[in-house]
């Protein structure tokens, strides 16, 4: 009965295996949505990542302790021979001062802000190079929910898109799936800040008549109900006005390098804080 003489069973099986991803893509309206079936695995993954994070912290601590011991030995030899104790102490004090300044900056930012913030440490990054996400050390147990904004003292980092009990995943501003409503602080021109993967950003849908120049600061508009109004997002790197294009092509440089950030704040409640006046004064 099989006129074309092929294995019907194999063909049906192959079609079923090919249809599975296609149906999955078709059914997924929001690429960041997670189903109940993801939960146990993401929870298990989060526990394992916490364990690895603690372990790597320990390894780093031991390594730096060992290196410090070598430094101390070296310094002692130098002190005996060249009397450079004061200089060494001064260097160490400068180092401590820098660390102190950084921590004080974080504390004063939290204290001076009306926003309800929760600090967290960056634990891990996305498995695939095609996505810019981070795992942070605070989760739903600490009051974190999907959709909350994540910031650092210098600017916007991203937003929470997945939470576990003790960890959360942050979609960085630079990820391809990330879009944030933005305003150019100087001219109040509006646009959508879209991630381009890697470390790039672009401001889209800016009308050609708008006044945008390189060096302008782009801030959050607050309209997306995720980020507080007036928080720095990026600086305009390049503006191109092509005659045939319907809008300006605006390239941005993020205010902070998301790859280098170590501590972040999750905004639990923005308390309607508007930071625009501070940005205007800085400009």
């Amino acid at each position, binding site marked *: 009965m099989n006129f074309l003489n092929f294995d019907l069973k194999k063909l049906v*099986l192959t079609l079923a*295996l*090919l249809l*599975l*991803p*296609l*149906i*999955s*893509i*078709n*059914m*997924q309206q929001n*690429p*960041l949505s*997670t189903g109940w*079936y*993801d939960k146990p*695995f*993401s929870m*298990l*993954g*989060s526990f*394992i*990542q916490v*364990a*690895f*994070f603690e*372990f*790597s*912290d320990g*390894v*780093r601590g031991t390594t730096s302790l060992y290196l410090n011991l070598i430094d101390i030995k070296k310094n002692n030899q130098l002190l005996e021979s060249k009397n450079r104790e004061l200089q060494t102490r001064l260097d160490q004090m400068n180092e401590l001062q820098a660390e102190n300044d950084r921590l004080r900056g974080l504390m004063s930012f939290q204290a001076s802000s009306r926003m309800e913030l929760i600090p967290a440490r960056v*634990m*891990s*990054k*996305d*498995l*695939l*190079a*095609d*996505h810019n*996400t981070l*795992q942070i050390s605070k989760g739903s147990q600490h009051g974190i929910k999907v959709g909350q904004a994540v910031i650092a003292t210098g600017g916007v980092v991203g937003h929470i*898109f997945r939470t576990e009990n003790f960890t959360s*995943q942050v*979609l960085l501003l630079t*990820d*391809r*799936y990330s879009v944030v409503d933005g305003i150019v602080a100087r001219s109040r021109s509006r646009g959508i800040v*879209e*991630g*381009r*993967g*890697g470390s*790039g950003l672009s401001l889209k849908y800016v009308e050609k008549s708008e006044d945008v120049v390189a060096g302008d600061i782009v801030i959050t508009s607050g309209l997306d109900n995720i980020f507080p109004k007036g928080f720095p997002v990026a600086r305009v790197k390049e503006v191109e006005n092509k005659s045939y294009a319907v809008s300006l092509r605006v390239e941005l440089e993020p205010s902070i390098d998301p*790859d*280098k950030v170590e501590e972040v704040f999750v905004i639990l409640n923005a308390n309607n804080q508007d930071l625009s006046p501070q940005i205007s004064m800085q400009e």
Partner: protein
Amino acid sequence: MQTSKFHFLNFFVIALVTFLLAAFLTTFWFQLFGDFPAPLVWLNVILYLMLYRRPTEAVLEIYLIGFLLSAAYSAQPIGIIWLVFFVLFSIVYSVKTRFFWPGPRYFFFASMATTTLYHIVFVLTSQVLESNPSGALLGQRIVEVIFTGLVSIPTFLVMEKWDRISADELANEAATQTNTGAVE
């Protein structure tokens, strides 16, 4: 029944180790080496399954591993990952039927080629299906291809060893069953 039990055990251990390795790469590697690209060890495991399992079994197993990795460690939707794996499997399988010899050397070359193919297929799929597709990220992808190739031989040896251990267990079990049957 016993055979399927051991096949399940074999795959369960492989999936668990791949899951742990992915956690290691996203956390431990990141803490020590920052944003420097990590080897795609999980892709080597997937390649091994593509080469050393029956076609249907291989596709189902790599779909399951893809689901585990996507659910726990990435923002990438599972549909695209499955589609990329299916295309990758089709290419690897058609090459394997024409040109294959078992051993670490073949696996090394296959790993380099598969990692390169994975990136190409991923970018193309993303260009076709996503509104804001993945970029070239050339430097990062090249480093990943080299690193993945470098860790392919140890991965192959470990996987082959585990397959041999499982097969021995399976043979012992079968022998015991036959003997018991003979006595009875």
